[in-house]
């Protein structure tokens, strides 16, 4: 029986258990991720971080969540009541729905019932995740619009543009995986990676042969979840809090929940697409290390590596400027991705036509290098050479912005050369001193 058939045979009680566990998993991961993020970023900044509530401060985010629930729920006077109310719900539900297609583990037996650690295995599983992420944007956009205030609106517009642009790069990076795995189903993609060998080694993952796709996916998933360094929709230095400025209490908590669940979703998705899902590398699918429950452990471990990357980026990189961010998305990620897909298809087609891979790649690389060399031979766009020297309103020339003040004037240099012959022995010891003296002298002269 295939994975989809086994999952379709699940009794109702097992499906209910899985649904409840998935929901609990999302909530617990959110609480844990908030704590982990605060602790790790604190460690990177040489401070302790939350350490009061519970062991190692583990219950801090639970306490914060409880506090949020008891805060006053404010509805702005100019808000669009209905839309303002449903926006946080719209952003939270798709985040959880995307979990349903994640293949968390292998085949296990729960209370004597054979099943997989996955809720459903649709033939279009990958599209479910994309659809959920595109619906999640509505929550953000509607929240910003319905608040009836300029900062949230600006944040929402930024966010809409950002998520749509980065969804294109994300969708294109998935194409490489689909071409290699011959399927859109999440379970089949993991199975395809189980049989993947590279130079006789069972790597059990796609990220080495599909490295460009993987790197683009990782970049675009940060943009897709509105996280630093791409957190422009909620840039606190520019937009107060972005789309959720006007929100408080549980509605605000729902946005927080959605953001962190989205982070977990895209990390788990990336694990499934590129890192081999729950498969342990270097061993076969029938190894002890790859039994159903252990696969769940490996899956979570791989997901946490990516989640740590999110935190690491946030602790390290400054926020992008908006135009730089858009340029990266449209002018770098999308074209690189398209040419990579064409190259991938070409290599696959040539291999199936019986061409040897090594020489093909070699001559292909030579052809690409030749094209690059040819592009250097093309004449550049002519830069208009203007002769004018900028002057002030009073008619004096303006010094250029990158002016370097010479440390020595020609006159001073002639003088020091004359005296150097007399006191050559003292030059090495007093060189820096005399240089700074001459600089002061020249400054005096200018004044």
């Amino acid at each position: 029986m295939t994975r989809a058939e086994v999952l379709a045979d699940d009794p109702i009680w097992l499906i209910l258990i899985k649904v409840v566990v998935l929901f609990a998993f999302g909530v617990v991961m959110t609480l844990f991720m908030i704590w982990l993020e605060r602790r790790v970023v604190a460690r990177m900044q040489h401070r302790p971080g939350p350490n009061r509530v519970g062991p190692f401060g583990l219950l801090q985010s639970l306490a914060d969540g409880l506090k949020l629930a008891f805060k006053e729920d404010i509805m702005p006077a100019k808000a669009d009541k209905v839309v303002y109310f449903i926006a946080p719900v719209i952003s939270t539900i798709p985040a959880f729905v995307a979990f349903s297609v994640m293949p968390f583990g292998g085949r296990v037996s729960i209370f004597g019932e054979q099943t997989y650690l996955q809720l459903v295995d649709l033939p279009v599983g990958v599209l479910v995740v994309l659809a959920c992420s595109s619906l999640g944007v509505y929550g953000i956009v509607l929240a910003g619009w319905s608040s009836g205030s300029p900062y949230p609106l600006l944040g929402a517009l930024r966010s809409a543009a950002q998520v749509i642009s980065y969804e294109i790069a994300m969708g294109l990076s998935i194409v490489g995986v689909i071409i290699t795995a011959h399927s859109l189903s999440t379970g089949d993609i993991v199975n395809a990676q189980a049989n993947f060998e590279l130079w006789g080694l069972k790597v059990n993952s796609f990220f080495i042969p599909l490295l460009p796709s993987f790197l683009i996916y990782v970049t675009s998933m940060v943009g897709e979840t509105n996280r630093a360094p791409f957190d422009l929709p909620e840039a606190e230095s520019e937009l107060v809090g972005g789309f959720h400025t006007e929100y408080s209490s549980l509605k605000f908590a729902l946005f927080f929940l959605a953001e962190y669940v989205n982070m977990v979703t895209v990390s788990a998705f990336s694990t499934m697409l590129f890192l081999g899902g729950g498969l342990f590398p270097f061993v076969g699918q029938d190894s002890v290390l790859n039994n159903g429950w252990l696969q769940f452990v490996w899956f979570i471990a791989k997901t946490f590596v990516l989640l740590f990357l999110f935190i690491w980026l946030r602790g390290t990189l400054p926020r992008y400027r908006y135009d730089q961010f858009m340029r990266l998305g449209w002018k770098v990620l999308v074209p690189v991705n398209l040419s990579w897909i064409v190259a991938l298809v070409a290599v696959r087609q040539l291999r199936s036509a019986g061409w040897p891979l090594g020489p093909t790649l070699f001559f292909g690389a030579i052809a690409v290098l030749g094209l690059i060399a040819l592009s250097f031979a093309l004449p550049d766009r002519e830069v208009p050479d203007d002769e004018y020297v900028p002057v002030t309103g009073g008619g004096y020339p303006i010094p250029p912005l990158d002016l370097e003040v010479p440390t020595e004037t020609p006159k001073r240099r002639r003088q020091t050369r004359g005296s150097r012959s007399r006191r050559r022995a003292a030059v090495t010891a007093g060189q820096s001193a005399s240089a700074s003296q001459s600089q002061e002298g020249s400054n005096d002269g200018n004044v």
Partner: protein
Amino acid sequence: MHELLLAAGGPGPVSTGEAIAFWILGPVALAGGLGMIFSRNAVHSALWLVLTMLSLGILYMVQQAPFLGFVQIIVYTGAVMMLFLFVLMLVGRDSSDSVVEVLRGQRLWAAVLGVGMAGLVVGAVSRALTDVQTANLNGPNANGGIGNVANVGKLVFTDYLFPFELTSALLITAAVGAMILGYLDRHSKGTKHTQRELVEMRFRGEYARPGSLPGPGVFATANSVATPALLPDGSVSGESLSRLIDTTASEELSGDVTSVAGSGVAPDAHALVPGADRSETEENR
């Protein structure tokens, strides 16, 4: 309607689950369509349309076409409607429809074309319900035995390659057209200057002054724009006062004046106590 569906259902009857889904999603889709037409606010209209599209997408999934269903959600709901919303939000939230006829004869033509469109739809649907033999998409042997997704992919890239490419050519034409309409050549004369060019022009004396105007005086006691900046010798800088404020009646600025002078109401710890008399405070403001 249900009986019609049953009658038209070629191989195999409509299952209970499908019937339930239809009777829930059908009214929802219809409500979405009506809501889109009758709501006064443009963003609400767009949201009703999203509801209709989502219900249609789920109906496709129920009818064993999951690829079509999810593509409907991703492309129409996720991309097309999002762009619509994007534009509507820029228009402003309080702008409502105007009932004035801008184009001459618009209503007449709208009515004629609307009736024609309705006739076409009714004709197509009635034919679909009576003449067309439905193909069963369910089961392992349906769809040529390789499943819905693989079959759709195969057909798009073989039999329907030319229409598919034509569609993409249409979309690219639209995108390129929009780019040309919106493109501004920065290198040609008479267009927007860069930041650097502006700085140089300012220093060349092409503007009234090289820097920006001095801001208002912000002191510990006031942050009003009506507060003038003081020059180093203590005199008031006339440039720091907005012309708008000069023309404002002095009563409107009296609050700011009292707060700068320090003769206004000081913060009162009893202000938060319920029952405290605050009418005095109100009067002073």
